């Protein structure tokens, strides 16, 4: 039976993809370099901000946000975390990571929320998006890391692009979910009072979906932080660096303090954004 002959490779998909990526890199590398520009500019701006501002001001700003949205305990935790990171000698790496994470999250929000709204309002668009979102969330980052480097070259910006691929799905999904959860009677009521579709979105669907959208943003931040180490493999700076460096040279201690800082930073950002979402 020829049909069940699985010993030979009948479909050389790997070769096709190889050829396609080579062709893409050869002919369109410049185009991909242009895509980088907005990300590059935003990142430089954020990095400039985090490195120019004195550390005490940054701590005060985060402490204020924590106090305002998440309560006293989180405020204390936030201040302690930043002091610990500073005394561990990882302040600069942490600032780079913060700039990277915020930059990725901003781009995820700017593209993800509109896509989520479209998916929330159209079943067909949701069906169309779903396999892409699944692929973005499950494809191991290492698979697309090399093509990203080939197209965008190494560095922090490439790290951010890889992060965006991984961190974008939750905000799209949760925005769509939030829009869909708005009670149909409320939309009916808005229409009955002469709302246009745009007014329905702006006055009813979006404000009511906001808690869900904020939950999506929170998830996106968490996933962006989880990409920090992988991004470091392609030359992105930040807290991933001590981890990668530590693993390469078997300095377990160095890797551990890098990892610890990532976890603590993640907890601070998570508590604060969750607090904002609940307000």
């Amino acid at each position, binding site marked *: 039976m020829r049909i069940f002959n699985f010993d030979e490779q009948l479909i050389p998909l790997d070769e096709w993809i190889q050829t396609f990526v080579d062709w893409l890199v050869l002919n369109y590398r410049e185009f991909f370099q242009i895509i980088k520009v907005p990300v590059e500019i935003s990142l430089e701006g954020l990095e400039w901000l985090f490195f120019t501002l004195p550390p005490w001001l940054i701590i005060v700003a985060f402490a204020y946000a924590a106090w305002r949205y998440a309560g006293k305990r989180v405020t204390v935790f936030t201040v302690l975390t930043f002091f610990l990171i500073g005394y561990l000698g990882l302040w600069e790496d942490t600032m780079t990571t913060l700039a990277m994470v915020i930059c990725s999250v901003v781009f995820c929000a700017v593209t993800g929320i509109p896509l989520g709204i479209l998916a929330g309002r159209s079943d067909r668009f949701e069906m169309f998006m779903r396999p892409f979102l699944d692929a973005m969330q499950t494809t191991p980052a290492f698979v697309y890391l090399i093509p990203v480097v080939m197209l965008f070259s190494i560095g922090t910006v490439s790290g951010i692009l890889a992060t965006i691929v991984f961190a974008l799905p939750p905000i799209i999904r949760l925005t769509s979910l939030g829009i869909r959860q708005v009670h149909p009677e409320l939309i009916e*009521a808005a229409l009955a009072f002469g709302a246009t579709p745009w007014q329905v979105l702006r006055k009813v669907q979006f404000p009511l979906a906001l808690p869900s959208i904020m939950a999506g943003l929170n998830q996106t931040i968490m996933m962006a932080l989880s990409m920090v180490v992988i991004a470091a493999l392609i030359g992105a700076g930040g807290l991933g660096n001590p981890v990668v460096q530590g693993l390469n040279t078997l300095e377990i201690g160095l890797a551990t303090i890098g990892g610890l800082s990532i976890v603590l930073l993640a907890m601070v950002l998570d508590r604060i954004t969750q607090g904002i979402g609940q307000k």
Partner: protein
Amino acid sequence: MAIDVKIEVRNLYKIFGPQPKKAMAMLEQGLEKEAIFEKTETTVGVQDASFEIYSGEIFVIMGLSGSGKSTMVRMLNRLIEPTAGQVLIDGEDIIAMSDDQLVKLRRAKLSMVFQSFALMPHMTVLQNAAFGLEMDGIDKSTREKRALQALEQVGLEAWAESRPDELSGGMQQRVGLARGLAVDPDVLLMDEAFSALDPLIRTEMQDELLKLQAKAKRTIVFISHDLDEAMRIGDRIAIMEGGRVVQVGTPEEILQDPADDYVRAFFRGVDPTNILTAGDIATVKQTTIVITEGKNPRAALQRLIKDDRDFGYVLDSERIFKGIISADSLRELIDDSAREQLIQNAFIDDVMSANSSDSMQDILPEVASHPWALPILSDSGEYLGAVSKNLFLRTLHRDQPEDQPVTEQLSNGAV
């Protein structure tokens, strides 16, 4: 009173499901809803509905769940797109309108109150009341002023800054009503607006609505599955069954002359003594004999005997009621030659009469306490007819067709 038609519904159909065209064709061939559903998985929501709603009336569309009444009201503002037919508001066919025109129409003329209140949870009570005005692009201070006036009308101005979830169900629906009133609509659509409220609050809201309606006559289309509610607030009622409008009329008309068994069954539980007035049930036929004032007693007696009646009703030439005579009182008069042979001398003592607007409940004691039928008069004293015990009982027991021999016999016996 000249009748001014506000909304006219002509041959309106709504068919839900995958094959509306095929289902329409099958309907034209005369197939039943159930058969159509089996063959095409397509549901007939509303079928060939035609009726008129007059300016300034409360028009109740009543039916059980699944009768298509909610679909019907949503076609009046095109929240649901009809499959075929026309809806004319002030003579304009809204089905033919573009999206822009439709938005303008909804802002200018229509508003709606929902069963589940459908208040915006992220807005304050005041913002909710101002919602329609906000959609219309009216500036903030004007719309808040008007919304506050609407809240005053429903007695909730003190709650303007609260959130809807801080209010009880009845209060929430008052906000829903205020939101509907704030835009000052020509037509207020109310979809089971009071059904989610407990009975006491429901009655209170009905009174409130009637009070508001007395102040400013709007055209109100009220959807309800509650017959008592329909009878209480409706100027006219349309009864829907299985997507069809089976009868349209005033509550009294429908109660007295139900179009079919479905309507009759619907009304079986109603207490007619609250709804029907003496004028509605009084009859001049069969049960009473009308004798004009000048007639001499002997001729009157002959007339009673001939028609086999015990009592006669005496009117003057203007049909003003004067009194009741009986065969006995006439005989007594004729036998006693000392008395002047005038018919008014044979009048029975303690005859009471009732006004046509008295309810059946009001006239019951009078009807029960005398052997003769109670005469019913208009405001000017004109004789409209009489209500006998049997007529009264027969009205209570409406299920029995009117011309059954038993009833006839009974009524003859008593009169």
